[in-house]
């Protein structure tokens, strides 16, 4: 099945970026918008209590953090060094691909991208791999970063036109982050966009010298979103390096911790918006930039929203990156206010200190990689959030620190919840407590349902208007990915993952 064909078959009434996502789930976020909103409504608020288990599949031990694709009746998903195809009706395994790893950090894998009958995913040891979707046979692999420089990969590739976007992550060694585009046929590199400017180029004025600039950071951890009308690809960049010791990189450190818009054909930047200037707490801006349209002061607007790791929710005009709203969604104490463009103003007293400073939220942030959802029926943005705090220490006080240069010690792993944020005002409309811990994403559907998980291994279906619980089931482990939904033979399925297992639910057959 061809994603381009799937996208071409959309109803013209719907905007291109949010083609009607219904029977299939062909990209990491379902469609290009990042809304994770499905038009399916067979399962709805009145019958969700009747959901029944159809099948389970055990992938064998490593927790699933990938959002599966569902194309042509087959599910495709990954964990580090492994990929599977599973029958979406029965849970029967069709093939399992695995590879011997050269190393790299095995923290998780977000899933696949698809083009025609080809699959694309990355490995911890820095390969972009392409498989034949029918057979699971490897077509090619290309090295997208240098493993020995501490690059490793977790992202789910996104396919736009004849481009496959992939990018490495960074942990300890100070290097530049980048987004790269590859030819889906050959794996040939098409372009790279670097998250720090070349010495002397625009943006350099936000770094003290070329050494600091080259030490970089700004890795692209999470798949981005795309607006075909504007032909713009949106993604977030991570923290500058060294992570917690900022004295050797005074300045805003562009384009780290930014929401970035690029032309997918050239990799040229269209605009950027930095959410945390000169970050020293590891609060990357990687979280999904969700695209939606809404009226502001009676005028229709093309918008983008992100719940950021730094504890602030941002809404922007996605045509030009201009600021619409900034609001707090968890307790945070590191900013002295907002500047004229809605960016938090950092309080330098809350930078890591040799004897420590108490900061809310902790390094893990107000939210993290878990995919959020936007429901056009309610106009609300839904995200799993955590309240937290840590003491941040500066351990390297030299003029030119390296790597992390500091650390944080957790002092508050507070309550987590699913929050509903009004997407154009930033106001919190409801808050559904989910205990402590838990890292599930969120899905909304036209059946007036929201699916997510709590910290005790329960999968939840909530009323997206009020946050009231409509259904739950304990899956025995916490959810670590985003739930999806699809329809086959006239039957709608809800696919959840907990631990290493997949669970498919549907209504009983009539």
């Amino acid at each position, binding site marked *: 099945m061809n994603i381009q064909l799937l996208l071409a078959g959309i109803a013209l009434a719907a905007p291109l970026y949010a083609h009607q996502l219904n029977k299939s789930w062909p990209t990491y976020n379902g469609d290009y918008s990042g809304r994770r909103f499905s038009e399916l409504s067979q399962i709805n608020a009145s019958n969700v209590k009747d959901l029944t288990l159809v099948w389970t599949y055990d992938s064998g031990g490593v927790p699933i953090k990938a959002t599966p694709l569902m194309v042509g009746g087959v599910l495709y998903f990954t964990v580090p060094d492994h990929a599977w195809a599973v029958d979406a009706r029965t849970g029967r395994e069709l093939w399992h691909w695995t590879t011997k790893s050269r190393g790299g950090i095995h923290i998780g894998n977000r899933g696949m991208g698809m083009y025609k009958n080809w699959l694309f995913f990355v490995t911890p040891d820095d390969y972009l791999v392409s498989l034949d979707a029918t057979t699971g046979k490897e077509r090619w692999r290309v090295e997208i970063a240098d493993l020995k420089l501490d690059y490793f990969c977790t992202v789910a590739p996104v396919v736009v036109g004849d481009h496959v976007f992939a990018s490495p992550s960074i942990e300890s060694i100070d290097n530049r982050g980048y987004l790269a585009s590859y030819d889906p046929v050959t794996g040939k590199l098409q372009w790279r966009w670097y998250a720090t400017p070349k010495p002397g180029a625009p943006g350099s004025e936000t770094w003290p010298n070329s050494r600091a600039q080259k030490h970089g950071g700004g890795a692209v951890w999470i798949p981005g979103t795309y607006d075909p009308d504007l032909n713009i690809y949106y993604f977030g960049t991570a923290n500058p390096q060294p992570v917690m010791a900022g004295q050797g990189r005074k300045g805003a450190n562009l384009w780290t911790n930014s929401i970035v818009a690029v032309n997918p054909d050239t990799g040229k930047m269209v605009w950027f918006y930095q959410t945390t200037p000169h970050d020293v707490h590891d609060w990357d801006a990687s979280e999904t930039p969700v695209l939606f349209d809404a009226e502001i002061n009676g005028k229709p607007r093309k918008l983008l929203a992100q719940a950021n790791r730094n504890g602030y929710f941002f809404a922007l005009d996605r045509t030009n990156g201009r600021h619409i709203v900034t609001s707090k969604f968890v307790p945070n104490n590191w900013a002295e206010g907002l500047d004229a463009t809605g960016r938090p103003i950092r309080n330098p007293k809350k930078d890591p200190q040799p004897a*420590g400073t108490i900061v809310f939220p902790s390094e893990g942030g107000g939210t993290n990689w878990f995919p959020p959802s936007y429901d056009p029926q309610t106009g609300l943005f839904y995200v799993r959030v955590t309240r937290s705090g840590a*003491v941040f220490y500066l351990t390297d006080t030299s003029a030119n620190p390296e790597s992390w240069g500091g650390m944080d010690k957790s002092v508050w*792993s507070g309550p987590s919840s699913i929050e509903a944020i009004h997407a154009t005002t930033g106001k919190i409309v409801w*808050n559904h*407590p*989910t*205990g402590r811990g838990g890292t599930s994403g969120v899905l909304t559907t036209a059946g007036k349902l929201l699916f997510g998980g709590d910290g005790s291994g329960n999968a939840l279906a909530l009323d997206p208007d*009020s946050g009231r619980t409509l259904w*739950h089931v304990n899956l025995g482990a916490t959810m670590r990915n985003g739930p999806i939904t699809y329809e086959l033979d006239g039957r709608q399925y809800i696919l959840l993952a907990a631990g290493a297992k997949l669970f498919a639910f549907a209504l009983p057959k009539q």
Partner: protein
Amino acid sequence: MLSNPKLSLVLAVIGTAVPHLSAQGLNLYLPPKQNPAAVARGKQLFQTNCSFCHGPEATGGNGGPDLVGSVLVNNDHHGNLIGPVVHNGRPDKGMPSFSSKLTKTQVSDIVAFLHQRIRNVRMRFSYKVKNLAIGSAAAGKTYFKAHCGSCHSASGDLKEIASKYPPETLQQLWLSPQSVLPRSANSPVTTVTVALPSGQRFSGKLTHLSEFNVSLYDSQGYHSFPITSGTKLQVHDPLAAHEQLLKQLTDSDMHNVTTYLETLK
């Protein structure tokens, strides 16, 4: 907001924390550990011969590039890539040949120093904080008496506490015992009283609480109850006071109390 505000408060009290990252969990790619004697000799040789251009820590200096982040150095294996550069120099970039100045063994010592540098940089979980006792012990003692004295005493449960923990752990411990102490038989117990719609009441050690279920141990054994609209819960977490304190604590309060606790040796 959730319809049952009491429940949301209760849910805030218990649960599983997100596990914290460790070097092992991350499967960090680390260059192998080098012979310490070779590293020490290599460091000395590097200071004499290389630091002018590459900086004393090999992270770049007067014209020479950063070697810790260098593609060539990171991909080097026992000097197979570094050796030829030192031997031949890079005349096009202004680096002279060191073939007449450094022996083969000396070059291999410099290689050992560089690989150890890269290893140390990557091991962020072994970072150490320095002096945390920067506050006023007297002010810390006053704060302690006012806010901690009803549960703790310097001559009782906290006697010689500073000898038992390194400073950063001690600071984390008093701010948030939950984050440090393993949940063991001796750790403070969270208790719960459950009042069922039938009027029956159970009290005991809380084992699990979610939106849907509460379970506990009492003298009779294990009990597990579904939570319905008529279920009433009262949770007592003996460590909750620490969480409350944290919300009002200033950094100078923290420094003062830690400075005071550091005197308890």
